[in-house]
């Protein structure tokens, strides 16, 4: 799952550094994630994982780190195994 999240970040988040080098706990906003790019990231994640983020998840914290994204998607239940790697 982390790899897929990184792929989606690469495609949509327009970060200012190599996504592979960003740790799962690093602050993505400090890596250049803007509020506009967050919307594209959400759309990309919804498409990749076939989920829909409910309104309560549409806040800064949900998309702050790769780990938070992973936990949110896991909570929504994609059927994909949750990888901690």
């Amino acid at each position, binding site marked *: 799952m982390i790899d897929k999240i990184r792929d989606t970040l690469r495609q949509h988040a327009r970060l200012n550094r190599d996504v592979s080098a960003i740790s799962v706990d690093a602050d993505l906003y*400090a890596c250049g994630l*803007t509020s506009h790019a967050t919307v594209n990231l*959400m*759309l990309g994640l919804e498409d990749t994982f076939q989920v829909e983020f409910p309104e*309560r998840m549409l806040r800064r914290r949900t998309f702050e780190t790769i780990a938070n994204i992973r936990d949110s998607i896991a909570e929504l239940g994609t059927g994909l195994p949750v990888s901690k790697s």
Partner: protein
Amino acid sequence: MPITVLSRSFGALERAQRIGLEIAAPFADAVDKDARFPTEALDALRTERMLGIFIPTEFGGGGCSIADLSAICATLGQYCSATAMIYAMHQIQIACIVRHGADSSFFATYLAELADTQALIASATSEIGVGGDVRSSVCAIEHDDGSFSLAKRAPVISYGEYADAILATARRTPDAPPNDQVLALLKRDEFTLTQTSGWDTLGFRGTCSPAFTLTATAPDDHILPASYADISSQTMLPVSHIVWSSLWLGIATAAVGRARGYIRAEARKSPGKTPAASVRLAEVVSRLQGMRALVNDSVRDYESIMHDADALSAMNFAIRMNNLKLSCSTSVVDIVSQSLLICGMAGYRADSKFSLGRLLRDAYGAALMINNDRIYGANAAMLLVSKDD
């Protein structure tokens, strides 16, 4: 009819009313005509300790609420738009320091100093080269042995020449991305302003908001500890939209007041006959009530979650606060225009007590400060994923 609900009474609203009526109003036309700073009203607000009104009482301030600020701005807005805007912008800066600096020993001391001196704080958030996006900076903080330096080209700094301090945004370091910003306090003896444009505008002429090049050197602890991303979403944006909308409500209220006065005068001339434009008055009064209701509802909305950082970062909250700005900035133009139709030539004349020219010119500024198209664009993007209203 009260402008808005005052949650607690400190006599502050009465003081604002008196300063507005007795000091701001008599100079409003001269301030507008000469595009000069409303010195008399700001001196009075300082003397009456209205500048530190939002600082908590533990620091020696007035301890008032956002609802109080909203009511004060709406009151001042009825008498002099420039005075109200300067006052509102100052309170936005105070709110940022109160809510994001009180834990820092420097800012705690500074808040007490502000309450004591009633200093006026300006804002330097916009910058040449970022296309109007205040969440991006070109300039950066450069640290050097316990202090930092900063050089910023600002397309506007409202009342910069008259401010005792400026809060400026900048990238955290020279290596930081454009949106990794901090907010730094620069006191009068720590900054230099070089004016690079004039200020001869359609409205809000007394805010004296030309372009400046700002250079500053200040101690490191003058940087607010929170990231600007948090300060912006939790405080600066919602408070800005609330206090601006409140003063636009004041402008709209003043315009409707003139329309009412005109219709009453007409009715007295011909008792028994309802003046033709009275239907328009009924219409505009209903519009004004809607605007007031939106301002008050937004104040309650913000106050109900203002201490919940997570809730404040929610997309639907951002959309609602943006809608407050979009709606009120449009309503104020509509309401003043309708009032002009009611007053007719008496409103069109610049020398009548029903004159609406200045109010209409000021009203047109509302959609431009943080351009409505930018805000509609932001909401449009968020609505691609947001589901709630």
